[in-house]
């Protein structure tokens, strides 16, 4: 009979192989799903994965990958720091919204003045907005032991209501004929998070994402805090002996993930989205959770995973319009990806042994 035995050390080979196996398995089962829906599975898989990268209009889609992937990577990096330490920030969506509101608010406060200081100020404001929203669950956890999963999640709904309130009230465009939504920041040069090199999709958010990847890598590999995070995640009691202060870690991890999520929101609202609207948030905060796990909570992994997720989104859109694939199929596809990853992850930490069990 087959038994599951814990490995003394996580297997590096499987650590790298698991995501790839997960993608392959998703392609197979996803293809089955598409076939059941009456679509040609091979065509669908090719449309989703190949076409945006190498297809006819790839020159357009490849920059879109960066645009779609940047917020995912930025948020996921922040989340991964916490997840590694067992601190579960599920409210990144709310922090994203608050960052966007603070950032856009800061920018609009200066309208119509032009200055090179406005965008940096917006960056600071956006980071602050996300940070403070994440500080609420952080402080509550440190002071009262309240579960951060639930508090951060409830705050997502609160943030959504704030978004609606701002779109209809304080941030509403006075020249907008009464319609909800702020001024379009894409039309306000000082506040526009424009592409740095035209046609590449690289805006400041993309740059920030890359910096975040490097920052997280260095933090985890070299810095005391990174060590504290890793140890707390793997062996909480050993961490206490090593002098790690759990409260500090909670404040740092939640604060950092909030800050990064807020930044992502701010870059998005002043760049690709352009406006503060009631439906501004599209779920990046939740998708980033998948990205974080898909990337094995490792900065470089997250970078790749973020791009992969972006690929499924963009490929999914193409599949919708070209093949008539329903939008929900892509959501199932993404959920499957996470499922398979979690399943294959077993082999990273455990191995199978054939034969009888030994009695201790």
């Amino acid at each position, binding site marked *: 009979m087959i038994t599951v035995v814990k490995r003394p050390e996580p297997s590096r080979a499987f650590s790298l192989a698991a995501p790839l196996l997960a993608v392959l398995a998703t392609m197979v089962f996803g293809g089955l799903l598409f076939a059941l829906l009456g679509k040609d599975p091979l065509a669908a898989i090719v449309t989703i994965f190949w076409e945006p990268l190498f297809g006819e209009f790839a020159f357009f889609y490849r920059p879109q990958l960066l645009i779609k992937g940047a917020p995912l990577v930025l948020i996921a990096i922040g989340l991964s720091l916490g997840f590694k330490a067992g601190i579960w920030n599920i409210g990144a969506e709310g922090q994203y919204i608050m960052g966007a509101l603070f950032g856009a608010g800061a920018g609009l406060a200066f309208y119509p003045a032009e200055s090179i200081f406005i965008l940096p100020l917006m960056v600071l404001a956006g980071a602050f907005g996300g940070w403070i929203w994440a500080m609420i669950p952080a402080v509550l956890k440190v002071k009262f032991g*309240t579960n951060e999963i639930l*508090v951060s999640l409830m705050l997502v709904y609160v943030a959504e209501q704030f978004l609606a309130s701002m779109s209809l009230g304080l941030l509403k465009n006075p020249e907008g004929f009464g319609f909800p939504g702020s001024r379009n920041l894409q039309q306000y040069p000082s506040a526009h998070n424009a592409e740095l090199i035209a046609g590449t999709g690289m805006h400041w958010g993309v740059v920030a994402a890359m910096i975040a990847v490097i920052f997280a890598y260095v933090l985890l590999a070299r810095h005391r805090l990174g060590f504290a995070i890793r140890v707390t995640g793997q062996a909480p009691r050993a961490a206490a002996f090593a002098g790690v202060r759990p409260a500090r870690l909670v404040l740092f991890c939640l604060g950092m993930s909030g800050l990064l999520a807020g930044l992502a929101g701010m870059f998005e609202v002043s760049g690709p989205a352009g406006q503060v609207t009631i439906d501004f948030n599209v779920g990046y905060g939740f998708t980033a959770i998948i990205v974080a*796990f898909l990337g094995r909570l490792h900065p470089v992994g997250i970078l790749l995973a973020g791009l992969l997720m972006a690929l499924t989104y963009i490929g999914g859109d193409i599949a919708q319009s070209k093949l008539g694939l329903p939008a929900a199929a892509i959501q*199932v596809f993404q959920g499957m990806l996470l499922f398979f990853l979690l399943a294959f992850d077993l082999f990273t930490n455990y191995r199978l042994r054939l034969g009888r069990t030994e009695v201790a």
Partner: protein
Amino acid sequence: MDLSAINPILFVASFFVAATPLIFAATGELVVEKSGVLNLGVEGMMIMGAICGFATAVESGSPLLGFAAAAAGGAALSLLFAFLTQVMLANQVASGLALTLFGLGFSALLGQSYVGVKPPRMADLDFGPLSDIPVLGPVFFSHDLIVYLGLGLVVVVWAVLKFTRAGLTLRAVGENHDAAHALGFKVKRMRTLAIMFGGACAGLGGAYISLIRVPQWTEGMTAGVGWIALALVVFASWRPFRVLLGAYLFGGLVQLQLNLQGAGVAIPVEYLAMSPYVFTIVVLVFLSRSRSSAPGSLGRIFHASS
């Protein structure tokens, strides 16, 4: 502004309907957590139940059959979670999230051809003269069968947990899975059964929304109710009757903000809409001071070393 427009009796009666999905989902999750598993996939299981129940009710013409199918659908989806966490030893938080995402997407797929369809009606139970009692009648005796089933579920779960051997075993597994294993209890089996029960209950809660409360099917129609149910379990300190209290409080708040709007109260809508969530946070803070009531092994992966 005309607060007299709010009819207090109808207002209180409306709590029961608003609270029922929460009661089902939270009670199911309570059992799961008592066994030591944190299943964040409640939202996914609820919406699976909503579509399974809806589709079955429409196809068969019987709402009751729909509810049965909803329980089955929720339980089936929860099996995926059980497989991941008990067999593949995956992280429970991530698995629960995966379940929610998958459930939302899969239900949307299944429900493609059911949008806008009218489901068969489930009538309110007829208590005859009891419904005519002035205040108590409309409040307590004029609801449909499922509302009363929900109340019954809470009582049954409480009784099983407190008085039966199975309940004791479940609680033991949840408190300390290593000790329970050493005593010979089948930890994984108990947890899997608990997970399936939670899935079935969540499915019933979801079906209540799609078959009675709205009643219609739309993608994502549970709109976060599953997450509220998770919060409720903590709010209730893992005690069944407190789940009831929390569900009525929350349901009541949602109804209150709608009623206040209708009565022309000048508080901006968004702040009223925020209030149930803010209130939940406040309550969570106060209650988390007594964190000792959480099951000892909650969220930890169990892997027998022998």
